[in-house]
């Protein structure tokens, strides 16, 4: 039952985000657009590239979808409305999202095209740039909650949301999350201007539809994680718990999706430089700072 509700809300959320993304790209708000595009994709043929690594080509999009769904499994929408409240939820989220990398490498390598391959390996090259900035801010969040369980993390914020408690961690986490779901301006693995679609370039028809759906799920999972870790999850006055989760997740996902149209894509070297030289020290500093606050000021 819980699974059904979560999956249903996931579908609704994915649709709304798709509407927003098409607005960000095409500049017009068309509520029917994602449905039309999806139907049209199903109607187009699903091509195989010349001499592909068929196994990796087929597995990539599916693994991406599975990784996204597993990540969603530990996001609490309301007390009790969570697929599995693991004691290691925060770590599990990381583990599931690590397979986004694996899936993109497969999808990039599989079709046997240079653009996809470069896109896939590019994503791996950025690995430390985003992964460390996901893990380290989570460490600081977990430090405060004294638990890896996502439900405990939400309840730990009942007096003060983490966005106010550790704003630095929030900023780093959101930036890294955008890198992890390759949203502009960090869309380096697909980069239409550099790689003509990169990882996505050789996928058509149904396979492409799966790839796009998986991407939406991952965006929602990361928006859900942001809300859980920093925006107090379901906490909020007046409205029911699930409504608060839904509103917050949609706002975060919406901002993530639409921010990229206002700035040029970040250069890969610059992205790596910022993450390694600035992001990681800041994230370590954030852990230290939160540790001190946890010990000194009980909030």
């Amino acid at each position: 039952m819980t699974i059904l509700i979560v999956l249903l809300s996931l579908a609704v959320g994915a649709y709304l985000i798709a509407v927003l993304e098409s607005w960000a790209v095409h500049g017009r708000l068309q509520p029917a657009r994602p449905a039309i595009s999806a139907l049209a994709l199903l109607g187009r043929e699903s091509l195989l590239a010349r001499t592909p690594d068929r196994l990796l080509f087929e597995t990539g999009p599916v693994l991406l979808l599975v990784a996204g769904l597993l990540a969603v499994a530990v996001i609490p929408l309301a007390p009790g409305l969570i697929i599995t409240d693991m004691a290691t939820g925060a770590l599990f989220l990381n583990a599931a999202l690590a397979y986004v990398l694996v899936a993109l490498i497969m999808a990039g390598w599989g079709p046997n095209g240079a653009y996809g391959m470069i896109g896939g390996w590019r994503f791996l090259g950025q690995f430390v740039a985003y992964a460390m900035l996901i893990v380290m801010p989570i460490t600081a969040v977990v430090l405060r909650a004294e638990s890896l369980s996502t439900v405990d993390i939400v309840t730990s914020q009942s007096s003060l949301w983490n966005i106010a408690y550790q704003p630095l961690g929030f900023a780093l986490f959101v930036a890294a999350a955008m890198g992890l779901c390759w949203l502009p301006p960090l869309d380096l693995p697909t980069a239409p201007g550099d790689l003509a679609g990169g990882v996505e370039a050789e996928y058509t028809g149904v396979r492409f539809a799966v790839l796009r759906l998986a991407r939406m799920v991952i965006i929602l999972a990361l928006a859900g994680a942001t809300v859980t870790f920093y925006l107090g999850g379901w906490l909020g006055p007046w409205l029911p718990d699930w409504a608060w989760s839904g509103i917050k997740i949609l706002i975060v996902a919406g901002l993530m999706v639409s921010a990229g149209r206002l700035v040029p894509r970040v250069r890969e070297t610059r992205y790596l430089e910022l993450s390694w030289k600035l992001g990681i020290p800041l994230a370590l500093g954030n852990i230290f700072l939160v540790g001190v606050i946890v010990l000194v000021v009980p909030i």
Partner: protein
Amino acid sequence: MIGARQGTMTMLQRLVAAAMSRDIRGFVVPGADVARAAGLDLGGAGLHLSATPRHANVLVIIAPLPAGLADAASVAYGQMPRPRAILALGSGDLGPLPDADATGPLTQAGLVTAMEDLRWVIATGSFRSDVDDYEAPTLQTRTEYTCPMHPEVVQDEPGNCPKCGMTLVLRKAAVSSHAGHAMPEKERDMPVETRVETTSAGHDHANDKGNKHGGAHDHGHAKHAVSEPLVQYTCPMHSEVISAEPGSCPKCGMFLVPADTKSEHAGHDARHGHTKHAADESPARYTCPMHPEVVQDEPGNCPKCGMTLVPVEEAVENSGHDHGAASQGHDNGSKSSHQGSHASHGNDVVIEGIEAHFMSMTDLTRDMPASEDGLKMEWIGVPFGPFFPGLPSGLRLDLTLDGDAVAGTSADSAVGLSELLHEDTTTPAAFVDQLAALSPLSPVAYSLLACLALEQAAEQSVPSSVARARIAAAERERLTSHFGWLAGFGTQAGFTWLEKRATALQLKLRVAPVIEIAALAPKITALLTRIQRTPLLKARLKGIGRLAGDDALPGPVARAGGIARDARSDDPIYTELGFTVLTATDGDALARLTQRCGEIFQSLELILKVGAIAMPEPHGIGTASGTGEAVVETPRGAARLSLTLHNGKVTAANIETPTAAHVDLIATVADGRELGDALTGIGSLDMSPWEVTA
């Protein structure tokens, strides 16, 4: 229209077809920049542009399709998933492509009508069963027979060579002259779901997997292979492997290289060259290519590593030798050669039980070329263009990538006129049109150039007011062209907001009268101010594509580097209007952006100062004779035209455009840079591949 599925339309199919007709994704040939310059608002007509033909269902062709792009366009069409359609705007020959499904004149209204037709075609025809398959002719192969001794003997039927009587051997050849891109035969009748699709040439997609192996060297070999059927292929490691076809070695998988010795029959007489020597001197002895200490009299496998033993002399030959010799041959679109790595085993200290240099990175990468960062790895050749979304359309760019850094470039223009004068005697009006057609991105500047040269040849001069109004037209075009560049930069950098705004302004300003331009001035100012303040923009452009000031730089690129070179400064009318040359200092992509923004302001001022716009038309040429020469600063740099007029007809003309200088700059801007930076640098040149004549 090429349908995808068999059978009649069911309810579901009708629904899907309706969805497809409302989800038109276009791949524009030659490119979005040309569409914008022609005044087409593709987005406004409901056409979403896609970056790759894989994601498109409509090939939008802005006719006439230049001859140099016909093959590439047909490949792009072949790459599109079915159902797919062709929308042709303007008139002209579509070359090897099937007939267009919807056509219209090259105007916005024509586009909108054609889009409606197209929607109807897709909604009704998506699931038609009576469709023909389409193969890009350049990718087709044909079977022919040739004599191993006389490569000039080629015929369609098997038989004997008329010269020497040898039996002709079979080979596959590309139908077109694209020697390096010969493709294996396509399977036509596969089910749709698994249809093997052709990629390469035109758009992109180097096929490389097995041959993700270095090196831009030596592209000659693939071509060699096609033109000279006598060549046999052998493995650089296993000389006993001889094959008539390129491919990979059945023993070690390395790519076979053309053997230099030509044996009489393919497949016969495996031993050749120096191997024979060994056989003459002594009974053959065999050794392991990896373990020189293993020597035995019998062929077999190495007791240490299991590799097949090779005759002794070859092993000597092999060790300490660079096998890199170019293992081209495998002509499937990707250009790569493998730099050998099993080098110099002979003189190493051998520790019993441990292979010398086992898994040694130094050894593995010894003979690989190193890029600027000093790291050695496999290089791949990747074609970009001529329809690449982040590059000027019509530019064919081949990059050798070392990881994702650019290790080598080769660029040329796939478009341009075959000749400046169609016939020896061209009327002045036709000549002006001809020159305007030379550059779809800046026709006015070239018309002006033609008019000035013609008038000088005829010793005519136009009234000052006309001259000024012409200048205003040229400046309007400069402004529009710079907005076009900004839109292109927006596309390349994923800066959607800029792309939309700049496109909108470009389309509005393209044919706007002075009064409208004046009304748009605040908008222009606002956009340019906002661009300068964009976060991450500096980080994206600073230091990219820096060019040192020297004489070869054209137009805005030179001025962005601090060189005050501008053909306009010699023009008395410009001086009268208070024109001064605007320069920036850094000479990088950011400076070029700033420079173009500055020039937009400057052009705006000039237009408002003149207050009238008139398109250049040749004035009072009559039946004059003489020679004329003129220089006009086009939006991309100075263009110089000299012509001879004889009895009112143009009999000879010669033009210099900034394009050649731009093409020469590409290597400087791209080499050694990360792929994204290299493309940004190339984009920042704002080159036009069109303004060339063969």
